[in-house]
C-alpha cells in the first residue's frame, strides 16, 4: 500500500510517502528522514527517550503510527536551537549537569519543553519530578534534570513577562 502524509517537521513542510502503515513516528524520523536526534530506548512507551512534540504536545513517538499524523506539526530536538543559540531548556541542561551519557537527554529536553508549556508544574521541584516521571535516566542524572527544568521554567516565565511588558 502507499499512503502519503504531509508533515511540518521543525518548521519545514514535508510530503512523506509511506510504503507501510506500521511505521512509527520514531522510525520515520530516525530511519527514513535521517533525523537520529530522537532516541529509541524501550520502543514500548516506558522510557520517554523518544519524546517529541506533536502539535505542541509531548508524546512518545514509538507508540504513534506515522500514518495517523497527516497535517501535524512535529518538533524534535533538532528543531529547538535557533541558529547557534540553544533553547533555554537545552542551556539549562548544560548548566546544571542534567545528563551523563546523554542518551535519554533529547527525550528529557523535549519532555521538559512540553511540561513547561503545560504550565502545571511551575518551579515546584516535586511537581517537576512527577511531571517528568515518564522519562527514565539510566545514569540517574535526576537531580540535575530537576534543577535544569526549574531554572528553565523561571527564565522562560521571566522572558514571557518581559515580552508582555
Amino acid at each position, binding site marked *: 500500500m502507499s499512503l502519503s502524509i504531509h508533515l511540518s517537521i521543525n518548521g519545514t513542510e514535508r510530503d512523506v510517502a509511506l510504503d507501510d502503515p506500521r511505521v512509527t513516528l520514531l522510525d520515520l524520523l530516525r530511519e527514513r528522514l535521517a533525523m537520529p536526534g530522537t532516541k529509541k530506548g524501550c520502543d514500548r512507551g516506558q522510557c520517554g527517550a523518544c519524546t517529541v512534540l506533536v502539535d505542541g504536545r509531548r508524546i512518545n513517538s514509538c*507508540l504513534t503510527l506515522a500514518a495517523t499524523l497527516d497535517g501535524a506539526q512535529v518538533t524534535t530536538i533538532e528543531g529547538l536551537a535557533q541558529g547557534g543559540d540553544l533553547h533555554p531548556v537545552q542551556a539549562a541542561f548544560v548548566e546544571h549537569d542534567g545528563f551523563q551519557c546523554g542518551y535519554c537527554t533529547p527525550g528529557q529536553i523535549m*519532555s521538559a519543553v512540553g511540561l513547561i508549556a503545560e504550565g*502545571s508544574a511551575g518551579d515546584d521541584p*516535586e*511537581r517537576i519530578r512527577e511531571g517528568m516521571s515518564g522519562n527514565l535516566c539510566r545514569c540517574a542524572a535526576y537531580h540535575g534534570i530537576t534543577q535544569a527544568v526549574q531554572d528553565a521554567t523561571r527564565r522562560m516565565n521571566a522572558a514571557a513577562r518581559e515580552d508582555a511588558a
Partner: protein
Amino acid sequence: MKMFDFAQPATLDEAIGAWEPGAAWLGGGTNLVDLMKTGAVQPAKLIDISRLPGLAGIDELDDGATRIGALVRNADLAGDPAFAGRYPMVAEALLSGASGQLRNAATVAGNLMQYPRDAYFPGPEPDPMADASSLSVLGAGGEPVTVHPSDFCVPLVALDAVVEILGPDGPREIALADLYQPGEPRTTLIPGELVTALRLPAAAAEFRANCRYLKVRDRTSFAFAMASAAASLRMDGPHIAEARLSLGAVAPKPWRVAEAEALLKGQAPGADLFARAADAAMAGAQPVGGNGWKIELARRTAARALAMAAAGTPADMPALPASPFGNQTGDLAHV
C-alpha cells in the same frame, strides 16, 4: 508487527461501516500499538478513529450530568478546570496513571477498553503466574486472572458512570460496571461497536468536597497500581449521608463494594468505622500465587483513602496525585 489494512474514516458512520471481523479501533494507540509490537494482538485492519469529528467535547448536560467524548485525551480531561472541580477524584486518578506523554495521547475510550497486563506476557500461552502482584484476589474465584489495570475506571465505577455505544444496529448505553465480564471477550462490547462517550450523572458531583483516589505502586510515579481505592463521602453535618467505595488492581474489573458503602451510611467518620468498611470490602478475598500481601495492602489502602476523603478534598491537586508520599498541597489533615 503483522501487516494490517489501514482505514481512516472521515465520519462516525463511515467508521461503523468500515468495521469488519478482525478489525480494531485505533485511539491514541498507547495500548494497542504496544501489544501489536509483541504480536499479542494482530488486527487484520486498523481503523483510525483518533481524529473523528464530534467526539472530543466535555459537556455539561441539562440534567446536570457531564458527557465526555470518547476521544478526549486523558490529560485534557484531568486538566479541564470545570471537570476537575466537579469530579476531583477522577482527575486525581487520571493524573496518577501512566506518564505525561502517555496521558497526552491516551483517549477516554482507549483507557476503558485497554487490555489487561497479562496480554504482555510473551509466548502464545500467557503465564499469569509470572507476576502474582497483578493477579486478582477478588472476583476471580481463586483462579489466576489478571486485574483490570486502569486507574481512571476505579472512581468512575463508584460514581455510576455510563458508557454510550454506537454499533451497526444503532446506539445503546450501559453502566460502566456492566462493560466488563470475566473470561473472553473481557468486555460486553459487541464486535463492531464503538464507545462514543462516557457520562457521569449529576449526583456524582455531590461528592466533590470529600473524595480521594489513593494508589499504591512499587515506585512513586509512572507505575501501575498494586492496590488502589477511590473513596467518596457525601456529608450531612457530622454524618455520612452516602458513601462510595471502589478498589483497583484487585479484581478483573474495577471493583465497587456495596457492603462497605452500606456500612458507612449514616455513621460518623472515624478510624474504627473505616477499618470495618475496609474489612468488609476485602471479606471474600482469596490469595493467588502467593499474593496474600495484596489483600492486606488493599485493606489498608481502602481505609486510608476513606480517611483522606473524610479530611476533605485538597484545594489544589496534590503534587504527587493519589500518592501516599510527598508534599501535599492544601489540606494536610490526612497525612
